[in-house]
């Protein structure tokens, strides 16, 4: 265990809390324990909100699940919607969807990728990158971006709007629609809807390319900080297409070690539990996954755009592939672990999403009428998708009466839990030891977390599984009782 994760003796240490961590989805806090000389003894990212979807989905009919679980999140509900639908495709025996259903779902998903990446970069993270981590918080926000860089801010807003329109056309609503159902979709795209989206594509593609250029320039101008800040080496994990190409909707799991050597490849969704295990800690609602073959100590990994871009062999759209090659060539093909490189990778994916959407809108299959298919009924299904923030796993067991009996969700932010904790400890080591605690320094920690684009709402869904410590003190402050649940997993 990292020496900064748990102080040996907390007596006399001063507690500094960053609460809430701002400009991320959901609620979290960071605590630092400092001694009299401001040396850091403990740094933790706590996820303090709590959802519990895994528990209350039990006993519900399976066809309700894709709509219910998307309420985990208001930013990437489509990812949960589609991961659940994919898992339940297996339950209804729909091993191969109709061409229309497959492509309408892909359209929905890449619309989601586009809008979420635009939201994260332009609305949430660009203020840090454009104004500097120590800049006045009054300016370091999206309103500041609007004032100082109005064209850029407008592009971000319109990119997000376009992605949301794609979602509305395919799911019925911009947020929390109902498009995907087990075995297919409930609607195709009309010619009118397609043509309206097509009209915006030239601008979307241009802005997406400009976004990639912007981030590449930021890295070039300040490469010392961008390549070093909060860097922690780890394994990486993502879906890749069966041909090794980037595929955010479907494929097989591949993991590489920190140097880029493939550890496992071609793992089917249904076998995810052979690949991944989860650990729990007493101080967070969020679990800590790891690759089973490497164990909890060495098996933790990163997911998300930075992992995906370096895990795949190629991006199957030309402009994004050219951007990926430029990204990789800058460091001679080595694996980049710097959190700030997430932003670059994220914008390359945004460009890729725009290109995929362009291709799908040219495909007559999205106008088709064959929407669903079925096959032999099964009792278990696993759906894996690459959500904007990383690999998202949904696993359901369904009984003969059509009710869900078991549910397991491993969401992107959970995969990155250990990496985020390690990143903020790295930042703490670099910026806190022996220094005064300032607003700017605290924000460095937030910047490191933000780079992972965490969705803390999604990541805290395991009702009844988190460890709990309850202590009872008498009036004199003496401990008279202590109960620990799940003690064998507590660190």
């Amino acid at each position, binding site marked *: 265990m990292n020496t900064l994760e748990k102080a040996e003796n907390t007596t006399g240490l001063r507690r500094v809390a960053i609460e809430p961590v701002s400009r991320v989805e959901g609620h979290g806090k960071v605590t630092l324990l400092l001694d009299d000389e401001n040396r850091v003894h403990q740094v933790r990212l706590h996820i303090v909100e709590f959802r519990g979807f895994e528990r209350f989905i039990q*006993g*519900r*009919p399976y*066809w*309700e699940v*894709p*709509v*219910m679980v998307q*309420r985990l999140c208001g930013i990437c509900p489509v990812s949960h919607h589609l991961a659940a639908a994919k898992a339940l495709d297996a339950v*209804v025996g729909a091993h191969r969807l109709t061409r229309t259903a497959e492509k309408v779902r892909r359209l929905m998903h890449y619309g989601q990728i586009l809008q979420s990446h635009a939201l994260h970069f332009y609305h949430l993270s660009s203020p840090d990158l454009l104004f500097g981590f120590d800049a006045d918080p009054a300016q370091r926000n999206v309103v500041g971006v609007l004032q100082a860089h109005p064209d850029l801010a407008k592009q971000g807003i319109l990119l997000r709007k376009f992605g949301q329109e794609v979602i509305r056309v395919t*799911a*019925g*609503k911009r947020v*929390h*629609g*109902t*498009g995907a*159902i087990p075995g297919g979709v*409930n*609607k195709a795209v009309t010619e009118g809807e397609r043509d309206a989206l097509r009209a915006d594509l030239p601008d979307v593609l241009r802005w997406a390319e400009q976004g990639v250029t912007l981030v590449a320039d930021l890295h070039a101008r300040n490469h010392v900080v961008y390549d070093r800040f909060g860097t922690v080496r780890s394994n990486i994990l993502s879906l890749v297409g069966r041909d090794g190409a980037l595929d955010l909707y479907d494929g097989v799991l591949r993991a590489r070690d920190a140097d880029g050597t493939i550890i496992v490849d071609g793992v089917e969704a249904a076998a995810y539990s052979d690949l991944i295990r989860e650990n729990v800690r007493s101080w967070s609602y969020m679990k800590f996954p790891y690759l089973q073959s490497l164990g909890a100590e060495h098996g933790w990994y990163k997911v998300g755009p930075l992992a995906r871009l370096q895990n795949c062999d190629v991006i199957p759209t030309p402009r994004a592939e050219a951007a990926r090659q430029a990204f990789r060539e800058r460091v001679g093909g080595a694996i980049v672990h710097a959190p700030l490189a997430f932003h670059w990778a994220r914008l390359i994916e945004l460009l890729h999403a725009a290109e995929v959407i362009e291709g799908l809108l040219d495909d007559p299959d999205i106008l088709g009428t064959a929407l669903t298919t079925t096959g032999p009924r099964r009792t278990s299904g696993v759906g894996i998708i690459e959500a904007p923030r990383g690999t998202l796993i949904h696993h359901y067991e369904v009984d003969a*009466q*059509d*009710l869900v009996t078991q549910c397991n969700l491993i969401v992107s932010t959970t995969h990155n839990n250990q990496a985020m904790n390690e990143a903020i400890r790295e930042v703490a080591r670099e910026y806190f030891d022996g220094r005064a605690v300032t607003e700017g320094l605290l924000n460095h920690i937030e910047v490191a977390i933000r780079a992972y684009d965490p969705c803390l709402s999604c990541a805290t869904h395991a009702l009844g599984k988190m460890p709990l410590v309850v202590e009872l003190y008498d009036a004199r402050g003496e401990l008279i009782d202590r109960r620990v649940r799940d003690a064998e997993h507590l660190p």
Partner: protein
Amino acid sequence: MSAPDALETIERPVFNLDGHEVPFSPGQTVIQAALAAGVYIPHLCHHADFAPHGSCKVCTCRINGRMATSCTFPASEGLEVESETPEVQELRRDLVQFLFTEGNHFCPSCEQSGNCKLQAVGYDLGVLTGHYNPLFPDRPVDASHPDVLLDTNRCILCELCVRASATMDGKSVFALSGRGITKHLIVNAESGRLADTQLAVGDKAMNVCPVGAIIRKRQGFRVPIGQRTYDAAPISQIAVQGETKGGTP
């Protein structure tokens, strides 16, 4: 509100509804005459195919100065009926909020959303929250039937399924049991399981539920947003246009 052509029908007796004359035929109740004249009065347990019931109370109006359910009150010459007054609407809003908070109505993930009469009436009355503390009752889901799911979390005890099964299907599959806050829907089988009843998908009782308590399995969310019953128009318009799911003109 409007009572369009009603004013021209001078041959029939009329009563006054919110300042408009509503014609009626002998034997009609206030709500029957109002709906026939194109005037919406909110309701849940009333259904054109069944005798007046008067259990949900949502159709309550002030009639000749006293509160009464318009679905059971016989229309008669010269009645003074107040329906869309702030006082009456507030009362109805309370009743609907009671229903929402007494059961487990999670519209965001309910497959009946967009087709649900309780939800539509709630929107019509301007219900924005449950207002009262939810009871979160522990109610069972019966999925034993191969084609039908009975989710009593959503049951509002309107007894439409009870009446349909008894009077139209001739099966008496459903009944209410208990009293007051403990009243609940039961099925007529020794095992208490829907699978052990004679309920079939084509039964009237299957297709009359105004909420999502009795639903056909594996059909949820197949109708896309935009094509559901209340997507195009509010219930105040739909209900006076003709028969809809669960109901009712």
